């Protein structure tokens, strides 16, 4: 929200008209020194415009994510003026490209928004500037951007400049003319002679801040002419002369307030009372804002204020010059207030500024976990760098903070090193700190163990962390429940992946509920995404629903390509592939690869290889499938502890070798397996596939019988489906068609509820099914689908031109599936938890891609293309 222009400012019609003209270009840059009136101009202009997304860059902003979250938040508020916009939330894993894409698409959805970025020179993140350049050169049609900065920035806008799409407003354009100076003084009720006005305009050279400062000093001045004469007659710099004049003309209370609170980036009444040691400062701040005296409120309720940067810088110098001994005390008081009010980063910075290094280190150790969850790893890094070298000697606190961001950023070995340092020094820390540090170390070791797939490591730490919180200070509980939510997430993940226990679901659900309670959407999404994977053993419908829930929640917070979503994306890829929708499977896999950052644990990469291997098998590209399963097998052997899909990987690897005729290699690999793996249903199936390839159907039958009759441990019912099919193939080779038909029908019956297609393709069962008489099966439709898939189709699509389908994004497909229903667009938006604008955009794109003029035509075309599975629960 842009505050309305305050009184005492004049409308500068010529300038506003120039901005109006500039808004015809794509991008307008207002580049002028401090105090040139950039912000006031933007505010005045905002009052006349429709929807503006206004971003005020924080002072010395180093964090690219914080900047983009602010941009996306502003865009959302502009798109939903009713004030029901979901504010985006930062995450521990920032995916810049996905974020910029999202900003771009929401700008396009909002339609005709002007993006205003003020104080862009404060953005000290080269990455963010590069990303912004990218956005500015690809702004959607009808979207305009205005940037205000003190100095020209390297934004790479030359292409826009060449195309005549860049308008510039510079210092000379912003200078007040003599008539404008006259109007400014008139508006403030200051009477000054023509000569006085001319002197003032010349002396300030029309510099906006100078004129506004002069107005403040002239208000109530007994002799305005004398003031202007004195000012014109001095060689002092305009800024300093007028700032000193302004300060001098304030009452003692106001001076006290201005000087003592100048150390703060933002101030409210309570803080000001604390720093000045007197009550009643909120009223003073409000009065100063109303008098247009360089105090700006930051929120609609007018509780937080900041000083104009130029004034703030001057006041800080004045404070250090006149009251140097008070500076550390003021910082210390501010740190205390911020710490009490949960503004941790401010508290740490003020402690550092006061030279209270050990306090700062404690605060950082206590809060680095929560800050990381809030996506502030970069901020923690910057805070750590501000400590002097001697603060690092035997400090468990700083080592814990460092390990926290190392874990978050995937620097696992480095994290382990810092944890060793932290543990070594815990005994020498004061007793009241020991438990706290132990808890922090334990939770970090837990995350580390989970990332490395070490079951034993996870279980050891979980026991320590999930014991109930008792007998500790109140403030610990909230923090520890964050720890507990993360512990549950890590435990559930390990249980789902390594142990395949049903406890996984319970723990993940509990973790998600706790995270929701704590207002930690990131952990909630992470738990839900893992839950999709954990429930793979149940019905596909449940699995899908949970994965979509995780994606929808992430979408609401402005995420979408974060690594935490990878398990859900992979599971969706898996489900699609199981059902024979290989195109969809491949799309989800690509989406996963985008979501996975550079550093991923072996666990998730293992799944990616399995998923890719499944799609390749389904498409009959066996050599490529073999490569993927081989890569998965190698990763599996690197994992500490077992993996839920371990026998599945081994089984598919061997079966694929067999189907490629590499039975010698497969048999050699069999001899290296331990008893447990060799006796699993999946490896038995592989053994049967090898026997079949070697022309020994009797041996194959003997092997699968144990699997079918439940005497072998299996990952899920799909292994039994495979066993029936391999048995059926063996029966056919032995000439027993009736038994073969029965086996095929058993497999179809098991596969029908989820309409599983892949095992039929992977076991090479096409001939077996083709020889099954149609009147002998209760699953004719599924049978037809399977044969289509076996002959190279991707279900549900049948011989459609791939361009249209490839062109539809997963989200568009989701929207498409609501079109045959009688739900209105707002209702569809509600179903998908997105805005109506988003649905409208998707529908527009669907119509365009399907070359349909309306809803019914789109539905018909989609049916022809097989995009709406007939009766398939999708």
């Amino acid at each position, binding site marked *: 929200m842009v505050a309305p222009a305050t009184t005492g400012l004049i409308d500068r019609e010529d300038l506003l008209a120039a901005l109006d003209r500039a808004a015809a270009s794509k991008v307008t840059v207002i580049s002028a020194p401090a105090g040139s009136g950039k912000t006031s101009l933007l505010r005045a202009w905002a009052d006349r415009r429709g929807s503006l997304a206004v971003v005020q860059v924080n002072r010395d902003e180093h964090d690219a994510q914080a900047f983009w979250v602010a941009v996306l938040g502003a865009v959302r508020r502009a798109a939903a003026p009713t004030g029901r916009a979901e504010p985006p939330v930062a995450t521990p894993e920032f995916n810049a490209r996905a974020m910029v894409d999202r900003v771009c698409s929401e700008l396009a959805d909002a339609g005709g928004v002007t993006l205003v970025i003020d104080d862009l020179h404060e953005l000290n993140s080269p990455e963010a500037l590069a990303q912004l350049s990218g956005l500015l050169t690809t702004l959607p049609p009808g979207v305009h951007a205005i940037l205000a900065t003190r100095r020209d920035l390297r934004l790479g806008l030359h292409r826009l400049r060449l195309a005549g799409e860049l308008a510039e407003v510079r210092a000379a354009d912003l200078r007040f003319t003599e008539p404008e100076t006259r109007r400014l003084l008139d508006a403030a009720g200051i009477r000054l002679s023509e000569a006085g006005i001319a002197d003032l305009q010349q002396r300030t050279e029309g510099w906006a801040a100078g004129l506004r400062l002069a107005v403040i000093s002239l208000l109530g001045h007994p002799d305005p002419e004398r003031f202007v004469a004195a000012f014109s007659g001095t*060689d002092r*710099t305009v800024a*300093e002369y007028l700032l000193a004049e302004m300060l001098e003309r304030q009452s003692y209370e106001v001076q006290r307030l201005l000087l003592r609170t100048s150390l703060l980036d933002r101030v409210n009444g309570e803080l000001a009372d604390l720093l000045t040691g007197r009550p009643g400062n909120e009223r003073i701040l409000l009065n100063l804002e109303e008098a247009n005296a360089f105090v700006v409120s930051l929120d609609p309720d007018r509780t937080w204020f900041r000083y104009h940067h130029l004034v703030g810088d001057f006041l800080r*110098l004045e404070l*250090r010059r006149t009251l140097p001994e008070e500076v550390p005390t003021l910082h210390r008081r501010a740190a205390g207030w911020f710490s009490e009010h949960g503004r941790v980063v401010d508290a740490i910075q003020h402690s550092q500024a006061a030279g209270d290094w050990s306090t700062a280190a404690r605060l950082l150790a206590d809060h680095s976990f929560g800050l990381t969850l809030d996506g502030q790893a970069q901020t923690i890094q910057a805070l750590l760098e501000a400590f002097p070298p001697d603060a690092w000697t035997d400090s468990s606190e700083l080592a814990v903070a460092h390990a926290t961001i190392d874990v978050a950023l995937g620097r696992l070995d480095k994290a382990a090193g810092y944890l060793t340092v932290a543990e070594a020094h815990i005994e020498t820390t004061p007793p009241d700190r020991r438990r706290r540090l132990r808890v922090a170390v334990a939770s970090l070791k837990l995350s580390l163990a989970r990332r490395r797939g070490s079951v034993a490591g996870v279980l050891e730490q979980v026991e320590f962390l999930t014991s109930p919180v008792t007998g500790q200070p109140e403030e610990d509980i909230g923090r520890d429940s964050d720890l507990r939510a993360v512990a549950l997430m890590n435990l559930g993940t390990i249980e789902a992946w390594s142990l395949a226990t049903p406890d996984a679901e319970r723990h993940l659900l509990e973790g998600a509920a706790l995270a929701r309670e704590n207002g930690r959407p990131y952990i909630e999404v992470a738990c839900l995404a893992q839950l999709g994977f954990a429930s793979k053993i149940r019905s596909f419908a449940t699995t899908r629903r949970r994965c979509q829930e995780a994606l929808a929640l992430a979408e609401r917070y402005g995420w979408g390509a974060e690594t935490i979503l990878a398990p859900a994306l992979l599971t969706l890829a898996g489900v699609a592939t199981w059902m024979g929708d290989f195109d969809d499977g491949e799309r989800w896999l690509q989406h996963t690869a985008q979501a996975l950052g550079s550093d991923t644990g072996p666990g998730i990469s293992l799944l990616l290889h399995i998923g890719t291997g499944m799609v390749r098998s389904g498409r009959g590209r066996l050599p490529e499938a073999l490569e993927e399963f081989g890569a998965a097998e190698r990763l599996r052997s690197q994992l500490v502890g077992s993996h839920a899909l371990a026998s599945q990987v081994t089984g598919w690897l061997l079966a694929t070798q067999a189907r490629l005729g590499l039975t010698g290699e497969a048999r050699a690999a069999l001899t290296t397996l331990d008893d447990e793996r060799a006796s699993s249903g999946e490896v038995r199936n592989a053994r049967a596939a090898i026997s079949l390839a070697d022309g020994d159907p009797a041996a194959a039958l003997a092997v699968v019988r144990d699997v079918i009759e439940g005497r072998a441990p299996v990952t899920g019912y799909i292994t039994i489906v495979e066993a029936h099919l391999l048995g059926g193939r063996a029966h056919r080779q032995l000439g027993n068609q009736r038994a073969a038909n029965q086996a095929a029908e058993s497999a179809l019956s098991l596969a029908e509820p989820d309409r599983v297609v892949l095992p039929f393709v992977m076991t090479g069962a096409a001939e077996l099914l083709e020889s099954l008489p149609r009147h002998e099966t209760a699953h004719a439709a599924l049978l037809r689908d399977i044969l289509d898939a076996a002959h190279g189709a991707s279900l549900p699509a049948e011989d459609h031109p791939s361009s249209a389908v490839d062109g539809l994004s997963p989200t568009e497909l989701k929207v498409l599936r609501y079109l045959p229903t009688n739900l209105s667009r707002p209702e569809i938006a509600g179903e998908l938890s997105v805005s109506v604008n988003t649905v409208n955009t998707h529908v527009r794109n669907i119509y365009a891609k399907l070359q349909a003029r309306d809803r019914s035509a789109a539905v018909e075309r989609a049916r022809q293309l097989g995009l709406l599975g007939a009766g398939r629960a999708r």
Partner: protein
Amino acid sequence: MRIHLPALDHPRMDPGQARYAVEVNGHLGVTALSAFPAMVAQCRGPRTVLVGLLDQSALYGVVAQLEALGLELLEIRRLTLDGVAEPDDGCLP
């Protein structure tokens, strides 16, 4: 919030310090001068020349400080050790 602390490690720190003269428009008062503790100020007519021994990052720090205080920068010169402006040889190949 800006807190200037000595940076811990500069991978490519320029060790070379030199005397610089930085000229701004107008006379600076005590408050503005306190922003440049490493510089000595001299008035030249209506202008002020700040002279100090600086390395490159300190020099840029001075420029940033001038910008923050709304001062008008007129000229920056590197001086020889006895305070004379270095001779301008034009652009040597």
